[in-house]
C-alpha cells in the first residue's frame, strides 16, 4: 500500500516545483510592449512639476530632439543651470528665508533630499562649488521608451514634421513618474504614418514613408 503515498509525494513534489517555478517567473517581466511601464528613477524627477506647473517647454531640456535621432535625456549640467539657485521646493526655501528674516540671520541653505542626489552626481558642494578630487558622473536613469535593436526611430523627422511630443508620449505634463503611454508597436507606428499620409500632421501636409526600410535597416 505504499503506492498511493509515493504518488501523492510525487504530485506534491511536482506542485511544489511548479509553484517555485511560477514564483520565479512571476518576478520576471516577460517580454511585451511595455505599455504603462513606469520604473522607479534614481531621482524622483517630476514632469508634472516642470512641464505643467512651471510651464517649461519640453525642448528646453530635451533640446536634442530636433537635432538628433534621440530626444536625449538632458545632461546633468542642464539641470544645474536652474538648480544652482533652486535647491529645494519653493515652500521650504521661502519658509527658511522668512524664519531667517525673523531671527535676523543669513538663511541657511535648504537642499531637498532628491536634489542632493543631483549635486552629488555633479560633484558640487552646498555652495555649488566643485568638490576637489571628485569627478562629475552620469546619472543612471532607467530607460522608459525602448525599441528593439532592429528599429530605428528618429525624433528629428517627427519634430520637423510638427508631431507634438504628447502625441506619442502622452500627457507627460501630468505624470509625476514618467511612464510609457503608447504601446510603440509597429502597427501603432504604421497607422499613424498612413493617417498622416492622408490627412497630414496638424493640417500641414506630411510625407511619411511606408517603406520597411524607413525604420528597419
Amino acid at each position: 500500500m505504499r503506492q498511493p503515498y509515493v504518488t501523492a509525494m510525487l504530485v506534491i513534489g511536482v506542485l511544489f516545483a511548479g509553484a517555485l517555478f511560477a514564483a520565479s517567473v512571476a518576478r520576471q517581466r516577460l517580454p511585451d510592449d511595455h505599455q504603462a511601464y513606469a520604473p522607479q528613477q534614481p531621482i524622483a524627477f517630476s514632469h508634472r512639476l516642470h512641464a505643467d506647473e512651471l510651464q517649461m517647454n519640453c525642448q528646453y531640456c530635451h533640446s536634442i530632439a530636433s537635432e538628433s535621432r534621440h530626444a536625449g535625456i538632458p545632461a546633468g549640467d542642464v539641470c544645474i543651470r536652474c538648480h544652482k539657485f533652486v535647491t529645494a521646493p519653493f515652500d521650504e526655501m521661502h519658509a527658511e528665508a522668512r524664519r531667517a528674516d525673523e531671527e535676523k540671520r543669513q538663511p541657511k541653505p535648504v537642499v531637498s533630499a532628491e536634489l542632493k542626489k543631483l549635486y552629488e552626481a555633479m560633484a558640487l558642494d552646498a555652495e555649488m562649488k566643485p568638490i576637489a578630487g571628485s569627478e562629475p558622473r552620469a546619472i543612471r536613469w532607467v530607460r522608459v521608451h525602448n525599441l528593439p535593436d532592429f528599429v530605428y526611430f528618429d525624433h528629428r523627422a517627427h519634430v520637423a514634421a510638427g508631431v507634438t511630443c504628447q502625441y506619442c508620449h502622452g500627457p507627460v505634463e501630468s505624470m509625476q513618474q514618467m511612464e510609457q503611454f503608447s504601446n510603440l508597436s509597429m502597427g501603432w507606428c504604421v497607422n499613424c504614418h498612413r493617417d498622416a499620409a492622408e490627412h497630414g500632421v496638424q493640417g500641414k501636409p506630411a510625407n511619411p514613408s511606408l517603406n520597411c526600410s524607413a525604420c528597419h535597416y
Partner: protein
Amino acid sequence: MNPQEQINSKQYWRSAAERNGHVEQPPLPGVTRRDFLEAAGFALSLATLSGCDRAPVQYALPLANQPEGVRPARMRYFASTCGGCAAGCGLLAGVRDGRPLKMEGMPEHPLSRGGLCAVGQAQTLGLYDSHRLKGPLKDGKNTTWKEVDDQVAAELRDLAQAGGAVRVVTSTITSPTLQQAIDRFLKQFADGRHVVFDPVSASAILDSHEQTHGIRVLPRYLLDKAKFIVSLDADFLGAWIAPVEFTAAWKKWRELPRQASRNDHAEGVPTEEHAKPEVDMSYHVQFEPRMTLTGSNADRRIRLRPDEFGLVLSHLLQLVAKHAGKDIAADQLAEPPVAPAELQAIADGLWQHRGKSLVLCGVNDVEVQVLVNHLNHLLDNYGPTLDVQHPSRQRQSDDRAVEQLVTDLKADQVAAILSVGVDLTYNLPPDAALHDAIKRVPLKISLAERHDDFSKRARYVCPDHHPLESWLDAEPVAGLFSIRQPMINPMGNTRSALESFAAWSGNQIQPLDVLRAYWRDNIFPRQQEVTDFTRFWDRAVHDGFVQIATATTTLVFQKDTAKLVSQAAPLDGLFLLLYSKVAIPDSRHAHNPWLQELPDPVTKVTWDNYAAVSPALARKQGLVDNDVVRLSVDEGNAIELPVHVQPGQHDQVVGVALGYGVPGTDRFAAIGPQWIQSRPTVGENSLVGVNAAPLVKLADGSMQYVRSGVRLEKTGRRHTLATTQLHDSIEVPASTRPPGSHGRGVLVQETTLNEYRGNPSAGAPKEHPFADQLWSDDHPYPGHRWGMVIDLNACTGCSACLIACQSENNVPVVGRDEVHRHREMHWIRLDRYYSGSESEPDVIHQPMMCQHCANAPCETVCPVLATVHSNEGLNQQVYNRCVGTRYCANNCPYKVRRFNWFNYAHDDTLENMALNPDVTVRVRGIMEKCSMCVQRIQEGRIESRRLGQSLADGSIQTACQQSCPAGAILFGDLNDPESRVAQAMNDARRFRVLEELNVQPAVAYLRKVRNATKEEQGV
C-alpha cells in the same frame, strides 16, 4: 564576324582550373542521420532556452557635462591625416558619441582627393584591438611611465658619457615634428644615428637620384600629367608608395565624357548637331613578373623575368636616345626578351609624349633605377610628370644604413637601439648571429603598439598611441603639411612617440605643445597669408592640411653617361619575387581581421600568403592549387607555403607576399564560429601565413626582394587556401542548363578606344527586346528612385569599397574555414574575370553587390515578405521578418545575398565598439545583403527635412562611393534628370548585368574601354 561580336564572343574565366574545365567542387559534408538529429535536438533546446530571456531593464546615461556642439547619436567629422601608412592621405574621421567609427576620404585633399584605401579604413578596428599594449613594460612586466623614464634617462646618461652608439630605427617618418624630436634626442649622444627601415623598401629610387641628381630624393610622380605610362613592376594602383594618390591621378586620363548612345540619337536628334566630345585616354604599359593589381588594369601587360628589367630598359633607352639624337654608346646588347617591334612602338610612344610620359619602376635595384632616371631625363619628364622640386617623403628607407646597422650590431658597436613603427627582427632575414648580437645590446627600447618580435627582445616596451589617439603632423610631399588630431582619449596608458622622445631628451612636454611649437617656429613663418599664429593653427586643424610654397632649387641631371645592362642573367632556374599585398602593406596590419579576410584583388585568397606560380610552371612541376611546397634559396633559409596557380605570372617566377606569419597572429586561431566541424584560421605554425622575410637578402646596400636560383620542392602535404575566386558563380553549370541554351550572356562588357571613338556604344551585345512583360507596371516611384552606376573604366578592383562597406554595415568576419565553405559575409564581391590565354590574360574587375532589381526574383519567393520593394527603388531586407528559408539567395541571379550561418558577433566588447549603431547587428539564421546604405539615405533625407532644404544631388553618398579612390561609383536619384547618376544612366557605355533576365536592376555599369588594339587583346 563584325568586330563588335568578336569582343562579345570573348570567353571570360576566373581561374586556370575553370578555364580548363575542371573546377574542384568542395565535397559535401558527410552528415549522417544521427548527426543531423543530434544537431537538430541541440538547436531546438538552445532555441527554447535562448527564447526564455527576461526583458532586461535598460539604463540611459547622459553625459554629466555636455561639451558644446556634441549631439548624441550624431556623427561629427574631423579632418585629419591617415595613419595607415606613410602616404599621408587626407582623412575625415567620423566620431559619434566619442567613438571614432568610420574613416572616410577627404575630398579637398590634394593627394588623395577623397579616396581612402582599405588599410586606412580598417584603422578603426585596429584602435579597438584588445591585444594592443595597455602600458609600459620593463622586462615583460607592467611598470609606470615615471619608472621607465627615470631608468631610461639614467641609462642614457651613462651611455652619453661613455660615448656609446645610439640607433633609432623607424619606418618612414613623414612628420617633421617627430623627426625633430628624434634629431634632438640623438643630438645628446656623440654617436647617435637615425636609421629608416621600410620592410618593403624603395631605397633604390632615392639612391639612384643621388647618382643622377646629386640629391637623395624620391620624386613625386604626377600620374595625372602622364599620358603615356610605362611601369616596370611598380604596383602603383595596389601597394606601391601611395596607391590612393596614384589611383586618383591615374584615373584622370581614364575618364570618358558622357556620350548618348546611338539609339538615343536616332530618336529625333540628328547626330551631326552633337559636337563630338574630345575622347582621350592615357596609354599604360606594365612590364611585370607577377600579376599585380596595376598590371591587371594596364592597357598592355608584358610578362618579364625579374632580371630582365635592366636589359629592357637599356633597349628602351637606346631607342629613345636615337629619337633624341643622342647616341648612347653601347656594347652589343643581348636580344630583348620583348618583341623588338613592340619595344620600338613603346619607345616611339614615349618619345611622342615626351614631357607627358612617365616611366616608373618598382625594382629595388639602383642600377635599374638609374636607367629609369636616364629615360625620364631624355623624355623631359623631370618637371612635368616627375616633381623633384617638391619631392615625396612617403618612402625614406635607406638600405645602406640598415646594412650598416646590422654590421654594427654584429660587431657589438651599438649601445642602445630604439625601434618605432617597424619590427626590426621580424622584417630582417633571421640570423642567429644578429639575434645574439641584439641580445648583447645593453639598452633596447621598443615603441611598438603591440607585442612584436623585437619588443619581446626589448628591455623596455613603451607603447605608442594608435594614430587615432595622438597628435602628430605629416609632410607627405614637400610643402604639404597636414595635421593628425586625436579622435578619442588614449584607451590605455600609452604615450605618443613624440612625448617619449621629448621625455628622454629632458623635456616633459605634451605632444600638442610640441606640435604647436614646431608649427609656430617652422611652418607659420614660411607663409604670409595669415599673420596671427592662432588663426593659422586653427585653420590648419580645421582643414587638416596647409599648402606652403617651398623654395625651389633647380636640380640638374648630373650624369650623362648611362651604364647599360647588356645581358640578363642567363638562368633557367626559378626566381623568387617578394612583394607586399594590397591589404597587408606590412606586418603591423596583420592584426586586423578585416584586412586578413579581404580577398586579394587579384588572387582572391584570404587569410594566407602563398607561393604564386604560373599555370605552365605548375604543370611542369606537377603542382596543383593548395599543394604545400618548400621554397629555399642558396644559403638554406627555407619556408613552406601552399601553391596558388596564378594566370599571367611569368613561368620562371614564384611570388610570395611579405607581412605574414606575424608573431601574435595566433590570436586568430578561433576567430570564426566554433562548432563541431570548424577548423582553425591559423596554419601549422599556429600563425596566419608564413613569414617570407627569411628569403629577403640584405646585401650590397639594398634589400633584395628578387632572388635567383630558388629551389621549389613538393612536400606532399596540402593546405587549403580560402579563396573566394569561384564563389557565388553567376554562370549556370552545363548540367543544369535548359537544353539548347548557352548559359549566361556576357557579364562584363568592354571595348577598345578606337572602337569607342567610332561608336560610343561599341561593345554592346545584341539587344534583348522584351515584348511580353510578366510584371504589370503598377509600382510607381513617386519620389526618389535610388540608383547606382559603376564605371568599370575607372574601377581598378582595389577593394577599398569592400572595407568601407564592412565598416559601415557591421559585416562580420567569419574566419578562414568559413570562407572556405563559401560563407564569407562581404556585401560587395569584387568579381575578377580573365580572358584570353592563360599565360597572358586580360583582366577586368567588376564590383558586384545587390542590384536592387525592379523585378526582383528574390522578392517573389520570400514566404514571409522579409524582402520587399520600396517605392524608392530599393530592395529592402527586413531582418526581423526573415526566418532564414534562403529561397531568396537561391533565386538571386547575381548571387549577392549572404546568410548568417552563425552568430558572428562575439563577446570582444572592445572590438564591438567599432560597430555602427545605425545598422542592426544581424543574428544567426537571417539573410542580409547590400542595402545601398539605406541608413545614410534616411539620415540625408531627415537632415534635409529638418533644415527645410531639398535633397541636393550628391548630399547622400554610400560608403563604397565615398571612399572609392578612383571615384568610380555614382549614387543618386534616377528621378532627378539633372543628377550625375541619371546622366550616367544615359551614357552610351551603360550596361546592366544579365539584362536578358529582365530583372531591371537599379545598378548599372559603364563599359570598360581599353586603350589597346584588338591584336594586343588577343581576340
